[in-house]
């Protein structure tokens, strides 16, 4: 049988097309995302995989490969685990979080079992909590961000014991009598607070005469 050049070209192109189609179909199937279920004990922990965040239990689609899962929850030490997502395999993951003991000694002993990454993650969460507390404090105590305020006759330094401590200072060398000085200082303090768009009557001011 004699095959001419034209037929040979057609056969070659057909074979190549079939091979490429098969490679495409199989590779697509191999690299297709796999659905995995991540559970934590207790639930409702914050999960972080790459840059994305989830709340447990979470069902997510991941392409085959290795991933690092960070699980954090208030009251628990952070957990960081690595998973290898493989096609057609049970990829369900259960993460058990270690509760933070109330006693310092027990807490320290668990702390020492954590990896450096878990420690860092736990401490990051604690610092975030502190930042949140700071933020809330400033929202509920708006005068604090303007402190300390000090002049010759007034000192408003800090907020403590649920009060703003306003010290009115008497100047002995001044010809103005003590009561008038205190009165003027008080008016100055109120005026300054108002200048910060705050109503002094809504603030718990503790007047200290010095």
């Amino acid at each position, binding site marked *: 049988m004699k095959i001419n050049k034209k037929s040979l070209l057609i056969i070659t192109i057909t074979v190549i097309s079939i091979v490429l189609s098969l490679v495409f179909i199989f590779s697509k199937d191999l690299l297709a995302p796999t659905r995995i279920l991540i559970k934590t004990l207790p639930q409702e922990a914050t999960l972080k995989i790459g840059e994305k965040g989830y709340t447990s239990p979470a069902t997510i689609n991941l392409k085959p490969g290795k991933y690092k899962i960070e699980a954090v929850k208030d009251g628990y030490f952070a957990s960081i685990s690595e998973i290898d997502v493989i096609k057609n395999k049970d990829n369900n993951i259960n993460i058990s979080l270690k509760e933070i003991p109330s006693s310092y000694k027990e807490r320290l002993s668990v702390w020492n079992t954590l990896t450096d990454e878990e420690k860092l993650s736990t*401490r990051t969460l604690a610092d975030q909590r*502190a930042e949140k507390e700071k933020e809330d404090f400033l929202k509920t105590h708006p005068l604090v961000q303007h402190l300390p305020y000090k002049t010759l006759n007034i000192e408003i330094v800090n907020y*403590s014991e649920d009060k703003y401590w306003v010290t009115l200072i008497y100047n002995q060398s001044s010809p103005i009598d003590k009561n008038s000085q205190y009165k003027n200082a008080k008016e100055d303090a109120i005026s300054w607070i108002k200048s910060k768009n705050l109503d002094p009557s809504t603030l718990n001011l503790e007047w200290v005469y010095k």
Partner: protein
Amino acid sequence: MQEDFEQNNPEDLEDFTPDQPTDSGGSSLSDKGRNLKDKAKKTKDKAKSAGKKTGGKTAEKTGEKVAEKGAETAASGAVGAATGGVGGAAVKAASAVSDAAEKAGISKGKQILLGCIIALIPLVIFLTMAIGMYSYFSEGAEGTGTSQSPSSSLSAFIERAKYYAAHPQEYADKYPDIDPTDCAVFVGNVLKETIEPNLSSEYYQDMSTFLTNSPNWEIFNTESNTNNLQPGDILYKSVEDPYGHVAIYIGDGQVVDASLGNHLPQISPYWGRLDKGGRYNK
């Protein structure tokens, strides 16, 4: 030595002398001294160009700055008198050497050069001291220059914390291998740089163990009362210790803290939620 001609030339010295009440030879220039001054004036341009050639521009500028500083100080009295004393003594010494050289038959040009060199020696010493004092006091005014040697006092600890809060990037650059937002490591580094030079880095993430075991520190309850706090107290949250937040109280209701992943060292109002403190007792 040539570059010093400009910064120490006798013309500049005159700016120092008018207000000087006492002096061991500088209050009135001798005739020889005046001659020397004239000669020095003539050689000024030569010296200046020579100084420039030999990299004397910087020294010249430094000399001018010191001369300006010296003039201001002289107006206030004290240092001016010392300057005049040194200047007068220098000129006297120079004129004496010049005389001796003349007798020895040394040429006029060499006499001037020799006289100037002799006149410069005490002045260079004086200016070195003045520059040293100037740099010392200017550093002292800033209070927290990193070039300062670590102090053993608690105030050094507080000032260093404040300094890093004012220059957070400097802190980050100084410790490139750590996370500069790490609160505990920040406190550990400031401690180590100042009052606890032997602090082991293993304590950085367990500050309370260090504070509890160290004889230099006492643990106390803050009870959310900033009126009870003292500058230099290290504050932390007992229920989170050793992994929780830690900050340095600097007074006036303020703390310096870094926050992991949130911010570099900065001054913040104290929010009253860190219930434990460590107080330096030395």
